[in-house]
């Protein structure tokens, strides 16, 4: 059965810390892995990854995929209180539907 597992489920850090969020997956016929950020409303798109070893970067956020070990990480450097959110990972396989993880709840304290 296709699944996506995110860890940790929650995390509390101080501003300026660097965090690494994990997403492991099992999916039939992998197509892409996506990261989303959800504050108190709808998820917003961060990254889509399709190839191993190629880092995607946007400001202080970056992500990389390992298709051999079946996982992805999302890094956030120099965290700010505005990074507080739930970070969702989703995987697209052979099916037309995305498989979603439960998310990692990140709280950044001043």
């Amino acid at each position, binding site marked *: 059965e296709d699944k996506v597992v995110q860890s940790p489920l929650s995390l509390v850090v101080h501003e300026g810390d660097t965090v690494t969020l994990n997403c492991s997956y099992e999916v039939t016929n992998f*197509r*892409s892995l*996506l990261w*989303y950020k959800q504050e108190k*409303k*709808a*998820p*917003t*798109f961060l990254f*889509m990854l399709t190839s191993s070893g190629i880092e995607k970067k946007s400001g202080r956020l970056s992500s990389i995929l390992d298709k051999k070990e079946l996982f992805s990480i999302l890094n956030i450097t120099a965290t700010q209180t505005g990074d507080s959110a739930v970070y*969702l990972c*989703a995987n*697209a396989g052979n099916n*037309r*539907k*995305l498989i*979603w*993880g*439960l*998310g990692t709840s990140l709280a950044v304290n001043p």
Partner: protein
Amino acid sequence: NAGVTQTPKFRILKIGQSMTLQCTQDMNHNYMYWYRQDPGMGLKLIYYSVGAGITDKGEVPNGYNVSRSTTEDFPLRLELAAPSQTSVYFCASSPGQGVNLHTIYFGEGSWLTVV
């Protein structure tokens, strides 16, 4: 910059009432989805559509119905509302083709309470 628009944003229903959540997208996306998200829980797929005239069940379809008569619109119907349907509902769409075929764009959500 409309993207995915869903209405209403908030609604309180009595048990047994029915209602329709409206969703429209202006990105000419083939795929559309309805999700529900309960507090502290992940996104659960209710129904999805890969094109006009085609719909299919997701993980939690019971108590809901959908239709897709046009590419733009994908309304979600709740029949005989129950307290278990109290949730936040997200409509979403994705291109369904090309490099970004699975990149999903969400509406802002509809908060529904059934009392």
